Protein backbone atom coordinates (compact mmCIF):
# COMPACT_ATOMS: atom_id res chain seq x y z
CA UNK A 1 0.00 0.00 0.00
CA UNK A 2 2.91 2.34 0.54
CA UNK A 3 3.89 4.87 -2.09
CA UNK A 4 0.55 4.56 -3.82
CA UNK A 5 -1.20 7.68 -4.96
CA UNK A 6 -4.43 8.19 -3.04
CA UNK A 7 -7.71 9.81 -3.91
CA UNK A 8 -10.34 11.15 -1.50
CA UNK A 9 -13.83 9.78 -1.49
CA UNK A 10 -15.22 13.14 -2.57
CA UNK A 11 -12.86 13.35 -5.51
CA UNK A 12 -13.67 9.78 -6.49
CA UNK A 13 -17.39 10.50 -6.60
CA UNK A 14 -16.84 13.66 -8.59
CA UNK A 15 -14.57 12.04 -11.14
CA UNK A 16 -16.63 8.92 -11.68
CA UNK A 17 -20.13 10.34 -11.18
CA UNK A 18 -21.23 7.54 -8.88
CA UNK A 19 -23.26 8.21 -5.77
CA UNK A 20 -22.68 7.44 -2.10
CA UNK A 21 -25.41 4.82 -2.32
CA UNK A 22 -23.63 3.02 -5.15
CA UNK A 23 -20.28 3.14 -3.44
CA UNK A 24 -21.68 1.63 -0.23
CA UNK A 25 -23.70 -0.93 -2.17
CA UNK A 26 -20.59 -2.07 -3.99
CA UNK A 27 -18.71 -2.22 -0.75
CA UNK A 28 -21.45 -4.34 0.81
CA UNK A 29 -21.36 -6.69 -2.15
CA UNK A 30 -17.60 -6.87 -1.80
CA UNK A 31 -16.98 -5.49 -5.26
CA UNK A 32 -14.56 -3.11 -3.62
CA UNK A 33 -12.25 -4.71 -1.07
CA UNK A 34 -12.33 -3.46 2.49
CA UNK A 35 -8.57 -2.85 2.41
CA UNK A 36 -9.01 -0.13 -0.23
CA UNK A 37 -10.89 2.04 2.23
CA UNK A 38 -8.02 3.84 3.89
CA UNK A 39 -8.94 6.06 6.80
CA UNK A 40 -6.86 9.04 7.67
CA UNK A 41 -7.29 11.94 10.00
CA UNK A 42 -7.34 15.29 8.22
CA UNK A 43 -7.98 18.78 9.53
CA UNK A 44 -11.64 18.51 8.57
CA UNK A 45 -12.06 15.30 10.52
CA UNK A 46 -11.64 11.76 9.38
CA UNK A 47 -11.57 11.16 5.64
CA UNK A 48 -11.60 8.01 3.58
CA UNK A 49 -9.00 7.61 0.84
CA UNK A 50 -8.63 5.03 -1.90
CA UNK A 51 -5.66 3.80 -3.90
CA UNK A 52 -6.24 6.00 -6.93
CA UNK A 53 -5.30 3.84 -9.85
CA UNK A 54 -6.94 0.68 -8.52
CA UNK A 55 -10.22 2.26 -7.51
CA UNK A 56 -10.68 4.22 -10.75
CA UNK A 57 -10.05 1.08 -12.77
CA UNK A 58 -12.42 -0.94 -10.63
CA UNK A 59 -15.24 1.63 -10.71
CA UNK A 60 -14.93 1.87 -14.47
CA UNK A 61 -15.02 -1.91 -14.80
CA UNK A 62 -18.10 -2.19 -12.59
CA UNK A 63 -19.88 0.63 -14.43
CA UNK A 64 -19.24 -1.05 -17.76
CA UNK A 65 -20.35 -4.50 -16.70
CA UNK A 66 -23.18 -3.81 -14.33
CA UNK A 67 -25.79 -3.64 -17.09
CA UNK A 68 -25.06 -7.16 -18.21
CA UNK A 69 -24.19 -8.90 -14.99
CA UNK A 70 -25.84 -8.92 -11.61
CA UNK A 71 -23.91 -7.53 -8.68
CA UNK A 72 -23.45 -11.01 -7.27
CA UNK A 73 -21.95 -12.22 -10.55
CA UNK A 74 -19.68 -9.21 -10.56
CA UNK A 75 -18.64 -9.91 -7.01
CA UNK A 76 -17.58 -13.38 -8.03
CA UNK A 77 -15.62 -11.99 -10.94
CA UNK A 78 -13.70 -9.54 -8.78
CA UNK A 79 -13.24 -11.85 -5.86
CA UNK A 80 -9.60 -12.75 -5.36
CA UNK A 81 -10.85 -16.31 -4.87
CA UNK A 82 -12.25 -16.42 -8.39
CA UNK A 83 -8.79 -17.10 -9.71
CA UNK A 84 -8.75 -20.49 -8.04
CA UNK A 85 -11.05 -21.72 -10.78
CA UNK A 86 -8.51 -21.11 -13.50
CA UNK A 87 -6.81 -24.16 -14.97
CA UNK A 88 -4.39 -24.07 -17.88
CA UNK A 89 -2.68 -26.82 -19.81
CA UNK A 90 1.03 -26.88 -20.48
CA UNK A 91 0.49 -25.85 -24.08
CA UNK A 92 -1.64 -22.85 -23.14
CA UNK A 93 0.94 -21.85 -20.62
CA UNK A 94 3.67 -21.69 -23.22
CA UNK A 95 1.46 -20.17 -25.91
CA UNK A 96 0.45 -17.35 -23.63
CA UNK A 97 4.05 -16.72 -22.70
CA UNK A 98 3.38 -16.91 -18.99
CA UNK A 99 6.54 -18.82 -18.35
CA UNK A 100 9.67 -19.86 -20.23
CA UNK A 101 10.22 -23.46 -21.18
CA UNK A 102 13.37 -23.72 -19.06
CA UNK A 103 11.48 -22.68 -15.94
CA UNK A 104 8.72 -25.09 -16.73
CA UNK A 105 11.19 -27.97 -16.94
CA UNK A 106 12.65 -27.08 -13.55
CA UNK A 107 9.19 -26.78 -12.07
CA UNK A 108 8.21 -30.18 -13.37
CA UNK A 109 11.40 -31.68 -12.00
CA UNK A 110 10.93 -30.27 -8.55
CA UNK A 111 7.17 -30.27 -8.17
CA UNK A 112 4.59 -32.70 -9.43
CA UNK A 113 4.66 -33.81 -13.04
CA UNK A 114 1.33 -32.44 -14.05
CA UNK A 115 -0.15 -31.42 -17.34
CA UNK A 116 -2.74 -29.08 -15.95
CA UNK A 117 -1.80 -26.08 -13.92
CA UNK A 118 -4.02 -24.49 -11.36
CA UNK A 119 -3.71 -20.86 -10.41
CA UNK A 120 -1.35 -21.44 -7.48
CA UNK A 121 0.96 -23.33 -9.84
CA UNK A 122 0.77 -20.48 -12.31
CA UNK A 123 1.60 -17.98 -9.64
CA UNK A 124 4.56 -20.05 -8.49
CA UNK A 125 5.73 -20.42 -12.07
CA UNK A 126 5.46 -16.72 -12.73
CA UNK A 127 7.48 -15.80 -9.66
CA UNK A 128 10.02 -18.55 -10.22
CA UNK A 129 10.43 -17.51 -13.81
CA UNK A 130 11.28 -13.98 -12.86
CA UNK A 131 13.67 -14.97 -10.09
CA UNK A 132 15.52 -17.37 -12.35
CA UNK A 133 15.61 -15.04 -15.33
CA UNK A 134 16.98 -12.15 -13.30
CA UNK A 135 19.71 -14.43 -12.02
CA UNK A 136 18.77 -13.87 -8.41
CA UNK A 137 18.09 -17.46 -7.68
CA UNK A 138 19.65 -20.69 -8.86
CA UNK A 139 17.73 -23.83 -9.65
CA UNK A 140 18.76 -25.57 -6.44
CA UNK A 141 17.27 -22.80 -4.39
CA UNK A 142 14.07 -23.00 -6.33
CA UNK A 143 12.87 -25.85 -4.14
CA UNK A 144 12.50 -23.55 -1.12
CA UNK A 145 10.50 -21.11 -3.17
CA UNK A 146 8.18 -23.84 -4.37
CA UNK A 147 7.68 -25.16 -0.84
CA UNK A 148 6.76 -21.87 0.73
CA UNK A 149 4.44 -20.89 -2.10
CA UNK A 150 2.75 -24.26 -2.28
CA UNK A 151 1.87 -24.21 1.39
CA UNK A 152 0.92 -20.58 1.71
CA UNK A 153 0.12 -18.82 -1.53
CA UNK A 154 -3.62 -19.47 -1.39
CA UNK A 155 -3.82 -17.77 2.01
CA UNK A 156 -2.70 -14.44 0.64
CA UNK A 157 -4.68 -14.13 -2.59
CA UNK A 158 -6.71 -11.27 -1.20
CA UNK A 159 -3.83 -9.72 0.67
CA UNK A 160 -1.00 -7.53 -0.43
CA UNK A 161 1.69 -10.12 0.11
CA UNK A 162 5.36 -10.06 -0.80
CA UNK A 163 7.91 -12.77 -1.30
CA UNK A 164 11.44 -12.16 -0.05
CA UNK A 165 14.60 -13.97 -0.97
CA UNK A 166 17.45 -13.45 1.47
CA UNK A 167 20.97 -14.78 1.61
CA UNK A 168 23.35 -14.80 4.52
CA UNK A 169 26.81 -16.31 4.24
CA UNK A 170 25.78 -18.43 1.33
CA UNK A 171 22.62 -19.79 2.93
CA UNK A 172 19.39 -18.78 1.32
CA UNK A 173 15.97 -18.25 2.85
CA UNK A 174 12.66 -17.64 1.14
CA UNK A 175 9.73 -16.17 3.04
CA UNK A 176 6.38 -14.52 2.45
CA UNK A 177 4.81 -11.64 4.31
CA UNK A 178 1.06 -11.30 4.32
CA UNK A 179 1.11 -7.55 3.71
CA UNK A 180 3.61 -5.20 2.12
CA UNK A 181 5.41 -4.29 5.32
CA UNK A 182 8.91 -3.01 6.01
CA UNK A 183 11.43 -5.76 6.70
CA UNK A 184 14.70 -5.18 8.51
CA UNK A 185 17.60 -7.61 8.30
CA UNK A 186 20.85 -7.91 10.19
CA UNK A 187 23.84 -6.43 8.45
CA UNK A 188 25.29 -9.68 7.14
CA UNK A 189 22.07 -10.75 5.55
CA UNK A 190 21.43 -9.54 2.05
CA UNK A 191 18.08 -9.05 0.42
CA UNK A 192 18.52 -10.58 -3.01
CA UNK A 193 15.05 -10.23 -4.36
CA UNK A 194 11.55 -9.08 -3.48
CA UNK A 195 8.48 -9.93 -5.51
CA UNK A 196 5.06 -8.41 -4.96
CA UNK A 197 2.71 -11.34 -5.19
CA UNK A 198 -0.31 -9.22 -6.05
CA UNK A 199 1.59 -7.78 -9.02
CA UNK A 200 2.14 -11.28 -10.34
CA UNK A 201 -1.51 -12.09 -9.79
CA UNK A 202 -2.62 -8.99 -11.66
CA UNK A 203 -0.28 -9.84 -14.51
CA UNK A 204 -1.50 -13.40 -14.71
CA UNK A 205 -5.13 -12.38 -14.57
CA UNK A 206 -4.58 -9.84 -17.32
CA UNK A 207 -2.85 -12.40 -19.55
CA UNK A 208 -5.50 -15.01 -18.95
CA UNK A 209 -8.40 -12.64 -19.51
CA UNK A 210 -6.91 -11.18 -22.66
CA UNK A 211 -6.42 -14.48 -24.36
CA UNK A 212 -9.51 -16.02 -22.92
CA UNK A 213 -12.39 -13.59 -23.04
CA UNK A 214 -15.03 -16.30 -23.00
CA UNK A 215 -13.88 -17.62 -19.65
CA UNK A 216 -13.53 -20.98 -21.29
CA UNK A 217 -11.38 -22.45 -18.58
CA UNK A 218 -13.78 -21.60 -15.83
CA UNK A 219 -16.61 -23.08 -17.82
CA UNK A 220 -14.68 -26.29 -18.39
CA UNK A 221 -14.20 -26.76 -14.73
CA UNK A 222 -17.88 -26.46 -13.96
CA UNK A 223 -18.81 -29.35 -16.23
Amino acid at each position, binding site marked *: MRDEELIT*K*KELLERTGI*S*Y*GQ*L*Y*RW*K*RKQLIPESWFIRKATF*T*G*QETFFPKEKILKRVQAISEMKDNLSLDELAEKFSPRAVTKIVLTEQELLDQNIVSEATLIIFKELAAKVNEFRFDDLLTLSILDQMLKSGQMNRFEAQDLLDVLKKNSSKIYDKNGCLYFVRKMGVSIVFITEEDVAVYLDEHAKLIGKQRISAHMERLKAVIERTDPSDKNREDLRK
Partner: protein
Amino acid sequence: MTEEKRSLTISGSGRAPGGCYEDVKISGSGKIIGDIMCGSISINGSGRISGDVKGSTIAVSGSAVFEKRVIAESINVNGTCRAEGNVSGERIQVNGRMHTAASIRGESVRVSGTLKVEGDLESEEIVAEGPLNVGGLCSAEHIDMTLAGFASRIGEIGCGTLTVHRRLSSELFGKLFKVFGKKLIVDTIEGDDLYLEDTEAKVIRGNRVRIGPGCSIGRVAYKNEYAKDEKAEVQSAVKE
Protein backbone atom coordinates in the same frame (compact mmCIF):
# COMPACT_ATOMS: atom_id res chain seq x y z
CA MET B 1 -27.83 -38.23 1.04
CA THR B 2 -30.45 -40.74 2.01
CA GLU B 3 -29.48 -40.76 5.64
CA GLU B 4 -32.27 -39.29 7.67
CA LYS B 5 -31.25 -36.58 10.04
CA ARG B 6 -32.44 -36.81 13.58
CA SER B 7 -34.03 -34.08 15.58
CA LEU B 8 -32.73 -32.91 18.91
CA THR B 9 -34.94 -31.89 21.78
CA ILE B 10 -33.75 -30.77 25.17
CA SER B 11 -36.60 -30.44 27.65
CA GLY B 12 -35.66 -29.73 31.19
CA SER B 13 -31.96 -29.29 31.53
CA GLY B 14 -29.29 -30.96 29.50
CA ARG B 15 -26.41 -30.78 27.15
CA ALA B 16 -25.85 -32.30 23.76
CA PRO B 17 -23.04 -32.54 21.26
CA GLY B 18 -23.08 -30.54 18.05
CA GLY B 19 -23.52 -32.09 14.64
CA CYS B 20 -26.11 -32.35 11.92
CA TYR B 21 -29.75 -32.29 12.96
CA GLU B 22 -33.12 -31.68 11.40
CA ASP B 23 -34.89 -29.68 14.11
CA VAL B 24 -33.28 -28.53 17.31
CA LYS B 25 -35.50 -27.51 20.19
CA ILE B 26 -34.42 -26.34 23.60
CA SER B 27 -37.36 -25.94 25.96
CA GLY B 28 -35.72 -25.77 29.35
CA SER B 29 -32.11 -24.95 29.69
CA GLY B 30 -29.69 -26.52 27.28
CA LYS B 31 -26.17 -26.30 26.05
CA ILE B 32 -24.92 -27.58 22.75
CA ILE B 33 -21.22 -28.20 22.60
CA GLY B 34 -19.59 -27.88 19.22
CA ASP B 35 -20.67 -26.71 15.78
CA ILE B 36 -24.22 -27.34 14.73
CA MET B 37 -25.87 -27.54 11.34
CA CYS B 38 -29.60 -27.96 11.18
CA GLY B 39 -32.93 -27.12 9.58
CA SER B 40 -34.37 -25.12 12.42
CA ILE B 41 -33.43 -24.10 15.91
CA SER B 42 -35.93 -22.90 18.42
CA ILE B 43 -34.91 -21.86 21.87
CA ASN B 44 -37.72 -21.32 24.32
CA GLY B 45 -35.95 -21.38 27.62
CA SER B 46 -32.31 -20.61 27.77
CA GLY B 47 -29.79 -22.00 25.34
CA ARG B 48 -26.10 -21.75 24.74
CA ILE B 49 -24.28 -22.99 21.67
CA SER B 50 -20.52 -23.14 21.90
CA GLY B 51 -19.71 -23.60 18.21
CA ASP B 52 -20.69 -22.18 14.84
CA VAL B 53 -24.37 -22.36 13.99
CA LYS B 54 -25.74 -22.89 10.53
CA GLY B 55 -29.47 -23.30 10.12
CA SER B 56 -32.30 -22.20 7.91
CA THR B 57 -34.42 -20.70 10.67
CA ILE B 58 -33.42 -19.63 14.13
CA ALA B 59 -36.04 -18.54 16.62
CA VAL B 60 -35.17 -17.34 20.10
CA SER B 61 -38.05 -16.78 22.49
CA GLY B 62 -36.18 -17.03 25.75
CA SER B 63 -32.54 -16.22 25.98
CA ALA B 64 -29.74 -17.52 23.83
CA VAL B 65 -25.99 -17.19 23.63
CA PHE B 66 -24.15 -18.06 20.45
CA GLU B 67 -20.47 -18.25 21.20
CA LYS B 68 -19.25 -18.35 17.61
CA ARG B 69 -20.61 -17.42 14.18
CA VAL B 70 -24.25 -17.65 13.17
CA ILE B 71 -25.46 -18.18 9.62
CA ALA B 72 -29.16 -18.57 8.87
CA GLU B 73 -31.82 -17.63 6.37
CA SER B 74 -34.06 -16.15 8.98
CA ILE B 75 -33.28 -15.14 12.51
CA ASN B 76 -36.08 -14.16 14.82
CA VAL B 77 -35.33 -12.88 18.30
CA ASN B 78 -38.23 -12.33 20.64
CA GLY B 79 -36.32 -12.68 23.86
CA THR B 80 -32.71 -11.79 24.33
CA CYS B 81 -29.85 -13.00 22.26
CA ARG B 82 -26.13 -12.51 22.41
CA ALA B 83 -23.78 -13.50 19.62
CA GLU B 84 -20.02 -13.40 20.02
CA GLY B 85 -19.15 -13.94 16.36
CA ASN B 86 -20.35 -12.58 13.03
CA VAL B 87 -24.02 -13.03 12.25
CA SER B 88 -25.39 -13.34 8.76
CA GLY B 89 -28.97 -13.91 7.73
CA GLU B 90 -31.32 -12.90 4.96
CA ARG B 91 -34.09 -11.83 7.27
CA ILE B 92 -33.23 -10.72 10.75
CA GLN B 93 -36.01 -9.60 13.01
CA VAL B 94 -35.33 -8.42 16.53
CA ASN B 95 -38.36 -7.84 18.73
CA GLY B 96 -36.52 -8.32 21.97
CA ARG B 97 -32.92 -7.50 22.56
CA MET B 98 -29.93 -8.57 20.58
CA HIS B 99 -26.27 -7.88 21.15
CA THR B 100 -23.55 -8.84 18.70
CA ALA B 101 -19.89 -8.54 19.61
CA ALA B 102 -18.85 -8.68 15.94
CA SER B 103 -20.70 -7.71 12.73
CA ILE B 104 -24.10 -8.42 11.22
CA ARG B 105 -24.72 -8.91 7.53
CA GLY B 106 -28.23 -9.32 6.22
CA GLU B 107 -30.67 -8.57 3.42
CA SER B 108 -33.41 -7.24 5.61
CA VAL B 109 -32.92 -6.24 9.23
CA ARG B 110 -35.92 -5.14 11.27
CA VAL B 111 -35.68 -4.02 14.84
CA SER B 112 -38.54 -3.21 17.13
CA GLY B 113 -36.67 -3.96 20.31
CA THR B 114 -33.05 -2.98 20.70
CA LEU B 115 -30.10 -4.03 18.64
CA LYS B 116 -26.49 -3.45 19.53
CA VAL B 117 -23.75 -4.30 17.08
CA GLU B 118 -20.17 -3.69 18.12
CA GLY B 119 -18.79 -4.10 14.60
CA ASP B 120 -20.53 -3.21 11.33
CA LEU B 121 -24.17 -3.63 10.37
CA GLU B 122 -24.67 -4.22 6.65
CA SER B 123 -27.98 -4.94 4.99
CA GLU B 124 -30.01 -3.95 1.95
CA GLU B 125 -32.78 -2.69 4.17
CA ILE B 126 -32.75 -1.64 7.81
CA VAL B 127 -35.93 -0.68 9.60
CA ALA B 128 -35.51 0.23 13.25
CA GLU B 129 -38.22 1.31 15.63
CA GLY B 130 -36.17 0.96 18.76
CA PRO B 131 -32.67 1.93 19.77
CA LEU B 132 -30.04 0.88 17.29
CA ASN B 133 -26.41 0.94 18.35
CA VAL B 134 -23.65 0.29 15.86
CA GLY B 135 -19.99 0.68 16.78
CA GLY B 136 -18.66 0.73 13.24
CA LEU B 137 -20.35 1.34 9.90
CA CYS B 138 -24.06 1.00 9.40
CA SER B 139 -24.54 0.52 5.66
CA ALA B 140 -27.73 -0.15 3.71
CA GLU B 141 -29.67 0.83 0.62
CA HIS B 142 -32.61 2.03 2.71
CA ILE B 143 -32.49 2.90 6.36
CA ASP B 144 -35.65 3.88 8.14
CA MET B 145 -35.39 4.77 11.79
CA THR B 146 -38.11 5.77 14.20
CA LEU B 147 -36.55 7.08 17.36
CA ALA B 148 -38.00 5.60 20.51
CA GLY B 149 -36.83 4.74 23.97
CA PHE B 150 -33.16 5.33 24.59
CA ALA B 151 -30.70 7.11 22.34
CA SER B 152 -29.31 5.38 19.27
CA ARG B 153 -25.59 5.68 18.76
CA ILE B 154 -23.97 4.85 15.45
CA GLY B 155 -20.36 5.34 14.36
CA GLU B 156 -20.93 5.95 10.67
CA ILE B 157 -23.87 5.66 8.30
CA GLY B 158 -23.41 5.01 4.58
CA CYS B 159 -26.54 4.53 2.53
CA GLY B 160 -28.79 5.27 -0.40
CA THR B 161 -31.72 6.73 1.48
CA LEU B 162 -31.98 7.45 5.18
CA THR B 163 -35.01 8.71 7.04
CA VAL B 164 -34.97 9.37 10.76
CA HIS B 165 -38.29 10.22 12.38
CA ARG B 166 -39.20 10.98 15.92
CA ARG B 167 -42.08 8.92 17.13
CA LEU B 168 -45.27 10.91 17.30
CA SER B 169 -46.38 11.15 20.87
CA SER B 170 -48.56 13.37 22.96
CA GLU B 171 -47.09 16.52 24.42
CA LEU B 172 -46.98 15.04 27.91
CA PHE B 173 -45.27 11.84 26.87
CA GLY B 174 -42.88 13.79 24.74
CA LYS B 175 -41.72 15.78 27.73
CA LEU B 176 -41.52 12.69 29.87
CA PHE B 177 -39.33 10.82 27.45
CA LYS B 178 -37.07 13.71 26.65
CA VAL B 179 -35.17 12.81 29.80
CA PHE B 180 -34.07 9.57 28.21
CA GLY B 181 -32.48 11.33 25.28
CA LYS B 182 -34.59 9.93 22.47
CA LYS B 183 -32.29 10.84 19.62
CA LEU B 184 -29.74 9.58 17.15
CA ILE B 185 -26.08 10.36 17.77
CA VAL B 186 -23.76 9.67 14.90
CA ASP B 187 -20.30 10.73 13.76
CA THR B 188 -20.71 10.93 10.00
CA ILE B 189 -23.55 10.28 7.60
CA GLU B 190 -23.03 9.78 3.88
CA GLY B 191 -25.91 9.06 1.55
CA ASP B 192 -27.87 10.10 -1.51
CA ASP B 193 -31.14 11.15 0.05
CA LEU B 194 -31.23 12.05 3.72
CA TYR B 195 -34.01 13.23 5.99
CA LEU B 196 -33.23 13.65 9.66
CA GLU B 197 -35.05 14.56 12.85
CA ASP B 198 -33.62 14.72 16.37
CA THR B 199 -30.18 13.82 15.12
CA GLU B 200 -26.77 14.87 16.40
CA ALA B 201 -24.05 14.52 13.79
CA LYS B 202 -20.61 15.95 13.19
CA VAL B 203 -20.48 15.65 9.41
CA ILE B 204 -23.18 14.95 6.83
CA ARG B 205 -22.45 14.48 3.15
CA GLY B 206 -25.17 13.82 0.63
CA ASN B 207 -26.90 14.73 -2.60
CA ARG B 208 -30.20 15.76 -1.12
CA VAL B 209 -30.08 16.67 2.55
CA ARG B 210 -33.06 17.74 4.60
CA ILE B 211 -32.49 18.60 8.23
CA GLY B 212 -35.66 18.37 10.27
CA PRO B 213 -36.58 19.65 13.74
CA GLY B 214 -34.46 18.79 16.73
CA CYS B 215 -31.21 18.27 14.83
CA SER B 216 -27.82 19.53 15.84
CA ILE B 217 -25.32 19.19 13.01
CA GLY B 218 -21.73 20.34 12.66
CA ARG B 219 -21.11 20.45 8.93
CA VAL B 220 -23.33 19.65 5.98
CA ALA B 221 -21.91 19.15 2.48
CA TYR B 222 -24.58 18.66 -0.18
CA LYS B 223 -24.68 18.33 -3.92
CA ASN B 224 -28.18 19.11 -5.17
CA GLU B 225 -30.62 20.11 -2.52
CA TYR B 226 -30.53 21.36 1.04
CA ALA B 227 -33.28 22.31 3.44
CA LYS B 228 -33.22 23.11 7.11
CA ASP B 229 -36.05 23.31 9.58
CA GLU B 230 -36.10 26.42 11.77
CA LYS B 231 -35.97 24.21 14.86
CA ALA B 232 -32.67 22.70 13.76
CA GLU B 233 -29.11 23.83 14.37
CA VAL B 234 -26.52 23.58 11.62
CA GLN B 235 -23.10 25.17 12.05
CA SER B 236 -22.16 25.25 8.40
CA ALA B 237 -23.66 24.04 5.14
CA VAL B 238 -21.78 24.10 1.86
CA LYS B 239 -22.70 23.07 -1.65
CA GLU B 240 -20.06 20.90 -3.24
